[in-house]
């Protein structure tokens, strides 16, 4: 797990080309969706409907530890890269770390200015979904 502060700092200090290169790395590093989620994905469960690209997020909370799994098509490298940033930052975190993560995280990453608002807006939906799902599962446990 990468610390969110480190990721923010890295993106803030990156120029435009470096940002693209970082996003490609993140896009390539997104782990494959584990087999046990594939059926649910194929049946359309856990899709982030606010995203135009088919994005699926699966969250598991066990003993206060959060595991995040995501699926984004390779033909959408930007969205894949963006989702991968969140997975990298929050997979393996504790529930309170996720609850306390900054509300304006996406603004802090500064990606809207570099890539254009319409390219990053789906990410706020993914971020909100992760936070809500963690809260829900924590309350239910």
């Amino acid at each position: 797990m990468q610390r969110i502060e480190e990721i923010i700092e890295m993106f803030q200090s990156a120029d435009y080309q470096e940002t693209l290169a970082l996003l490609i790395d993140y896009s390539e590093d997104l782990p494959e969706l584990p087999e046990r989620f594939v059926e649910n994905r194929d049946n359309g469960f856990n899709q982030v409907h606010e995203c135009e690209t088919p994005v699926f997020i699966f969250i598991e909370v066990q003993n206060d530890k959060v595991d995040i799994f995501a699926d984004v098509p390779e033909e959408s490298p930007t969205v894949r890269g963006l989702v991968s940033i969140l997975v990298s930052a929050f997979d393996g975190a504790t529930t309170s770390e996720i609850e306390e993560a900054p509300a304006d995280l996406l603004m802090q990453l500064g990606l809207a200015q570099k890539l254009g608002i319409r390219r990053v807006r789906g990410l706020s939906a993914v971020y909100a979904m992760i936070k809500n799902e963690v809260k829900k599962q924590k309350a239910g446990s």
Partner: protein
Amino acid sequence: MAEYANPDVLVSTQWVADHIDDPNIVIVESDEDVLLYEIGHIKNAVKVDWQNELQDQLVRDYVGPEKFEKLMSEKGISNDATVVFYGDKSNWWACYALWTFKVLGHEKCLIMNGGRQKWVEEERELTKDVASREKTNYKVSKTDESIRAYRDDVSKHMAAGKPMIDVRSPKEYSGELLHMEAYPQEGALRGGHIPGAANVPWATAANEDGTFKSADELSDIYENQKGLKKGDDVVAYCRIGERSSHTWFVLKYLLGYESVRNYDGSWTEWGNLVKAPIEKP
């Protein structure tokens, strides 16, 4: 079967493959997804990003002639080069880039029919090597505002009862949604459409494989079903003017309407404009 009014504005993937090394042809990739070019593009293609390169970063406008000259010179595109655009999403962004190039006065602009999707589906070669073209000394001699409509033009157009095509989704057209589904931050304060506009979602003009529908199909959609007549003066709009540039291309070149303008202010301007008339069913 009827042919397109200007069949020469479209080239096939095979044509592009045959002209990859032609020095007078510049292949330009323009995508919504900003990384697609980086993960692989057609050999010798240069990237033009609508967000960072064609739009002004401060004022809501496109770059002016000076910045465009600089951009074109750096990309290695000369005034007499034939530019072939292609991109993702059925060439949606390629058409937007083409329209912007036309506004800024670039003459020879073509579209690779089917765009990136068709090229990839045909398993044609992609490369990560960034093309290096010799810099040029590009000069804008005249811009072409005749293909761009501003809000006052649209008001007059509406008052005259001339045809308009609203290319947004049916729910945006009806006013049920204030923004495109999944795009909440490009909204407007009011929902509905410009009075008199007919609704033809932009993708109606595209086939599953990203190519344009045939001339007969397009004529059926816009003329038989929506009542456009040859010789009509038409305005197309959407939310920010990019989807409507796809329809602008279809009407202008494929169906051959002489006078068709893209209203790039579109609904994010009209739906926020004080006292602008709105029709809502």
